[in-house]
């Protein structure tokens, strides 16, 4: 998870460098940037949590997982992981996909 966050920060920093007028955050804006606030999102403790958090977190913050739980079962999670892998290019091996599916189905199927 730490590695993914570092990866994200590097991307955010490069996005910041792209903007010529102060980058991502203007100097006068007081609030914490969303990519720092989001560290408050914690997933349930269970085997596969670190792998799941680390992979999902590359592209999006983690509250997508608990907020979607009421709509999910094993089959829908399977499709979702497949979509992230095949359509969105998430760097997830087949073996990792299986572990992530077990974690998400076990902790976030039909529950909030």
């Amino acid at each position, binding site marked *: 998870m730490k590695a993914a966050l570092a990866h994200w920060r590097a991307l955010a920093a490069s996005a910041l460098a792209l903007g010529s007028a102060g980058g991502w955050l203007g100097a006068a804006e007081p609030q914490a940037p969303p990519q720092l606030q989001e560290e408050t999102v914690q997933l349930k403790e269970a085997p596969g949590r670190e792998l799941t958090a680390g992979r999902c977190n590359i592209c*999006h913050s983690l509250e997508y997982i608990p907020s979607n739980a009421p709509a999910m079962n094993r089959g829908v999670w399977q499709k979702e992981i497949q979509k992230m892998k095949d359509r*969105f290019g998430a760097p997830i091996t087949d073996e990792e996909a299986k572990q992530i599916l077990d974690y998400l189905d076990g902790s976030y199927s039909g529950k909030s």
Partner: protein
Amino acid sequence: MATRRELLLAATGGCLIGRVWATDAGAAPEAEALASLPGKRPLIRRSFRPPNFETPLAELAAGFTSNDAFFVRYHLSVIPRIDPASWRLEVSGASAHRPLTLSLKDLQSGFEHAEVVAVNQCAGNRRGLFTPRVPGVQWGSGAMGNARWRGVRLREVLQRAGIASDALEVVFGGADAPVMPATPAFVKSLPVERALDENTLVAFEMNGRPLPHWNGAPARLVVPGWVGTYWTKHLTSIRIEPRAFDGFWMKTAYRVPTGAFPGVRFTSQETAETTPVTELMVNSLITSPVSGARLRRSAHAELAGKAWDAGAGIEGVEVSVDGGRSWRDATLQRDLGRFAWRDFRFVLDTSSAGRLDVAVRARSRNGAKQPDKLTPNPSGYHDNIVQTVSLEVA
């Protein structure tokens, strides 16, 4: 949240039209977590990254939704802050005779300005209220707002580039980008006829101010009557093309079963099974009182809310306090334009104590009415079913 709503429905014996809304205090905490994006008031946080923030019900009561309370919706997480002085808009494509590049100054000083008041609503607004639940950002009712948009007519920009007679679609790209290079960029297209509609704008102002960063600065597309997915933010490229655009966000995402919904058809993108979501459905929102509110017996009490459609305009709003057996007309307020929402008011009878379930149904000038039942679709779009708030007179 669904459980709670089901309980409320069960408590009414299931006789209500539509759905009782759980908008009162004490709703599920994850549904009401407020957070601030820089430059925005606290909004309902659906996700931090990409940022998806919903306008709270109280902020939807105003005629124009304030810029710092307007909802924020992104698919991709890399959102550069753009320097207006270095921003450029490329207009090109296989059906453009004279490709051109415009600066913001070119856009603002080279074309006649145009304004439209229009509702911007996410196709998935209210997805979180679907039964059964469907995956996606679990929006409540605030992935929408009404604003006065000012910019230039898209058709004049396209005409400057020269539109070939074989033009079929116009394709729009923005500056927001994915984290992973393999993730499809958020590119959308419109049928050329809709792109040429006089109401379709390249807008740089919202409610008299420059567009907020989180709503597409320095310029975005405004497609009145069509769902928000077409209102490309941070617009950087426009391509006039003779072929149907085949990107992920057109061919796979933002689609509904063919024939399931009324509204204009996007025929160059349609298949036998699915078709792009296009126009808004006739709809309404009760902004006050909120479900669960207590009204004092015999005291003056008024229902207030909004009704809108895809641009035919609102013909009327009806209110039922007897579970849908009889309906009476609410009073429509000032008309801000056919693409805007229309405020309505209705005096509630508080003479007898007890539970008061109030249902609201809008009808469009084209004859369409809000339905009682949800039309199922896998992505949870177009929820416009009749809304009921449950009040208590005591």
